[in-house]
């Protein structure tokens, strides 16, 4: 399986992966999270586990089970770690622990390295046996609601190390803290190369005009993705350059705020025939892939963001991306090199015009963007980093390790 990445991922990454895999041959690497499908963590584990196995590592992926109350509690914990005030009673903490205790009885926790993803399975560390235990925190906990953070600290401190996605998501925890950004899989349906026929199929089915440059934003209809700001920027651009705006996202049937936002966006777009609001069903990976490939300029004009991997996805397709300078976006866009970082609607409009008017610069920027993703945001790099952390844990105290 790893051979499929030859010619795509950097040679050094593949080589180091093989060296590390040689060192860990036959040893066990257990990942635990709380869902098999849906969300970025599951998406990456579905691809990463087979890669690890193909390298000769005994990689396993377990998913904890819980009742509705458990997931309501963990949702609150998740929100509190990101700064919302949430009240979690001692009884709720007890339930959180009990559910993990029941899971611990059914999951074989005996492994050489254990990676626990996010806070839901956090208490499993109380039942640790052998090996290095690492907590993989995918969310921004730099300004948590203190009561909840402190209560969760009872578990966090029992780990050997913690991994964050971005340095600014971390906080001082008196333990080894690694920074490993997430990644995209260049071979997945969302990112693989598409044939002309596949792209045309999407274009025709969704009724997309190709006679004007396309400005695209793929995101949920959420105020933090600023869809109204995107429309305003498009209108500023439209005075000077003819173009089409596509806002593509999944309908948020379970999110009342999302539904309201979508209505607001539709109303604001009014009956402009050059604004296309596309509601794509979940798992529309190939359509998103095709849309990113036909776009001239891709936007991720977020006002608040986690890592924002849609940026890397578009960059991988050789597109210049204009992104809000929030969350993990500045890590992906080197301003003026691999895209543009913006701080306002006016800035967004200005950069769109710049890219539309200088196609050669846009092309060069897109090519650099793809190379930047190749070096930094492919799944092989993330797999390499996980194994490197494991190796570093077994060679503690060294800042330079010769393999």
């Amino acid at each position, binding site marked *: 399986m790893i051979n499929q990445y030859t010619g795509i991922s950097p040679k050094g990454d593949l080589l180091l992966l093989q060296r590390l895999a040689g060192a860990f041959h036959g040893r066990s690497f257990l990942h635990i999270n709380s869902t098999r499908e849906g969300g970025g963590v599951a998406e990456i584990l579905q691809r990463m586990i087979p890669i690890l196995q193909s390298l000769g590592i005994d990689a396993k992926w377990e998913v904890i089970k819980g009742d509705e109350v458990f997931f309501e509690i963990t949702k609150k914990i998740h929100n509190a770690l990101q700064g919302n005030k949430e009240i979690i009673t001692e009884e709720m903490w007890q339930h959180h622990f009990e559910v993990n205790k029941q899971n611990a009885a059914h999951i074989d926790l005996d492994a050489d390295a254990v990676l626990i993803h996010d806070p839901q399975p956090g208490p499993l560390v109380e039942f640790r046996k052998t090996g290095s235990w690492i907590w993989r925190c995918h969310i921004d906990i730099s300004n948590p609601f203190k009561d909840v953070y402190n209560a969760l600290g009872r578990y966090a401190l029992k780990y050997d190390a913690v991994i964050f996605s971005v340095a600014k998501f971390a*906080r001082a925890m008196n333990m080894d803290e690694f920074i490993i950004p997430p990644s995209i899989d260049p071979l997945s349906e969302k990112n693989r190369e598409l044939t002309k026929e596949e792209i045309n199929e999407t274009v025709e089915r969704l009724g997309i005009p190709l006679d004007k440059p396309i400005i695209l934003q793929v995101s949920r209809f959420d105020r933090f993705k600023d869809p109204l700001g995107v429309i305003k920027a498009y209108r500023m651009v439209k005075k000077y350059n003819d173009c089409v705006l596509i806002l593509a996202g999944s309908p948020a049937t379970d999110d009342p705020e999302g539904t309201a936002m979508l209505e607001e966006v539709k109303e604001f777009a009014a009956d402009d025939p050059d604004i296309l609001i596309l509601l794509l069903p979940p798992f529309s990976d190939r359509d998103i892939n095709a849309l990113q490939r036909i776009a001239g300029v891709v936007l991720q004009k977020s006002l608040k963001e986690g890592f924002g991997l849609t940026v890397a996805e578009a960059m991988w397709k050789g597109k210049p991306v204009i992104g809000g300078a929030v969350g993990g976006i500045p890590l992906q866009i080197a301003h003026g090199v691999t895209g543009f970082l913006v701080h306002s609607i006016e800035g967004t409009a200005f950069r769109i015009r710049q890219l539309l008017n200088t196609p050669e610069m846009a092309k060069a920027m897109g090519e650099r963007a793809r190379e930047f993703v190749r070096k930094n945001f492919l799944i092989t790099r993330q797999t390499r980093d996980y194994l490197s952390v494991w190796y570093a844990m077994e060679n503690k105290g060294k800042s330079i390790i010769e393999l």
Partner: protein
Amino acid sequence: MIEGFEFKQCTSILKSTGKKAGNLHKLRDMIARVSDDCIFHHTYQYFLKEHILEYTNDFAHWAGESLEERSLAEQLSSIDPYEFDNIIDLRKELLYVIDDYLEKFPEPREAMPGDEFFFNETITLVFPIGLKAKNLAEFLMAIKFVDIGSIYYHFYEARMRVGGGIDDFSKWIEESLGKKGLAEKIRAIDLFMHNIEDIRKHIEEQTEEELKGDMEVMGVGK
């Protein structure tokens, strides 16, 4: 018997210290206290990042982009870490430049929340990539082929590892191949003025030129 050049590569895993600075006073205090590894990462390892040639280390980058203290950014950018034999002296120079600036402008602005300076370190893994050049032609082939992590390891990182500010490539070319002229040309490449891909191109060009010269001397093609 010529000793071959064994290509290696390094990869760094980022570690957070959990420490951050929101203004220049705090940055100064932290630079005085953080580990040598941390200073090393924010200065020497800056060249591993994708950047336009505006700054030459993370401190200058932050002063310029986040604090918008352009003059300080220029002064910090002009610090050449390879001029110092150790981190202690480099740290002193960074502090000297910031202190001097703070004396003239004692109340610089605060960074926006989330845009503070985050102090990091790295763990570096070094590994051979299975390539050994036995002569200059093989060296040229390899230079074209290797990842930038390998160029960084031999051209930048070597200066601290080997000492004396000398990179691995020119050292081998001079000592094992006896080509002092080519070694000097490679040493003359200004490592501040190029990104790693450009460095690769320059080494390629100089090496190709040398090989052409060798072939002419041997009468190849006549």
